[in-house]
């Protein structure tokens, strides 16, 4: 089993898993907040925020990666501030890969969650408020459970996207084995070599298997949640 992939390849697989999981976890709260803001609040700049969220989808990934490099790189404005104030360095680290994956996956996550939030019946939230729940508690005890299938859908879409993210990642954090060489970067490297297709195919299968497992898991969780609601 372990022979099937080289140590470097296993490292790429685990790195991709790590990066994708973190990308989903880190962006989840922001995704929820953004989705909620877009679905429910009316504020100036709402359309701008909406546009901004979709940007990584519209731009070629390489451009997004390049913009990330310019702003979050060692020489970038935000990158320097992060480094000075918090000692956080993103460029050329796996944490940067997390940022790239999270940003690329963000529009997918937000859309799924937003649709779910828009489908919540405000009458139930009103009922919750009359029972004494403040906005925060209404959200936590009524809205959140009701949008859970949407949140899961959003998270799994984001995870899948993060697993497949390539252009922005390789541009922002490069393709350093063991550090920033994710599964897609590894696949890309294979495709750069003549007759590398078989090596690439092996890794593609690994990617497919992981994604399938994640999908099955999410379907199962969604179904359980739906079953809880429909009563059995």
């Amino acid at each position: 089993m372990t022979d099937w992939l080289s140590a470097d390849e296993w490292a790429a697989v685990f790195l991709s898993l790590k990066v994708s999981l973190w990308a989903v976890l880190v962006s989840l709260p922001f995704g929820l907040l953004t989705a909620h803001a877009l679905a429910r609040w009316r504020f100036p700049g709402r359309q701008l925020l909406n546009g901004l969220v979709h940007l990584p989808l519209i731009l070629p990934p390489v451009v997004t990666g390049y913009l990330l490099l310019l702003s979050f790189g060692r020489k970038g404005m935000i990158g320097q501030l992060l480094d000075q104030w918090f000692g956080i360095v993103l460029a050329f680290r796996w944490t940067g890969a997390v940022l790239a994956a999270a940003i690329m996956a963000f529009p997918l996550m937000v859309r799924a969650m937003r649709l779910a939030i828009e489908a919540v019946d405000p009458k139930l939230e009103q009922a919750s408020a009359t029972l004494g729940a403040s906005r925060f508690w209404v959200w936590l005890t009524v809205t959140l459970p009701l949008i859970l299938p949407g949140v899961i859908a959003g998270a799994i879409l984001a995870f899948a996207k993060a697993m497949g993210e390539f252009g922005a990642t390789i541009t922002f954090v490069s393709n350093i084995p063991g550090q920033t060489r994710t599964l897609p970067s590894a696949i890309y490297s294979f495709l750069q070599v003549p007759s590398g297709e078989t090596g690439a195919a092996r890794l593609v299968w690994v990617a497919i298997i992981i994604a399938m497992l994640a999908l099955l898991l999410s379907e199962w969780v969604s179904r359980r949640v739906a079953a809880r609601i429909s009563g059995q």
Partner: protein
Amino acid sequence: EEVVVFAAASLKTALDQVASGFEAETGHTVTLAYAGSNALAKQIIEGAPADIFLSAAVNWMDEVEKADAMVPETRLDLLGNSLVLIAHGKAAAPVEITADFDLPALLAGGKLAMALVDSVPAGQYGKAALEHLGLWQATEPSVAQADNVRAALSLVALGEAPYGIVYATDAVAEDNVTVVGTFPADSHRPITYPAALLTGAADPADKAFFEALSGEAAGKIFAAEGFTLLN
């Protein structure tokens, strides 16, 4: 000691072998990051923690030099390459690439696969060569530009495009293509792969590997992969 090398993706096959030889010999670790020369150059300019840069194009090394990201006196043209015309399959007839070479007739309506002719080095060299031979105008509508040389090679290997223009090094390892002709060296600027030590390189291992790149063992490997040694 760890050596981090940023290298143009087209160097992968050869450089992997060079590095593992070096590792076995010295006990140092060589970490090789491959990507397009342009991406690597920009990353180095933005402060990537690399010790050595191997570019597939002179202009991107120039950029790195302009940004003071490398040690100028270490810059050298490490390798050379030549440009070839390849055809799909194993039994294609060789052609003579001269000024009266009728490329459009050879294509017979099929596509000529090249890397992006305005931006990717291999494409730029190819376009220059065709222009030099007076073939560009007639050929241009048939050119399918891929985003890198390797993708252009794939198009020919799969038979999607009957012919393509790639580096000689790329053609070597692909079974499904035949080199039917080599573009005259004077039809384009010399194809060179510059190398340099970067400003971040501090420890002796970096220098050791940089030197090893011009060494005999490395030379053999590069030559076997179809590169010409410029050093």
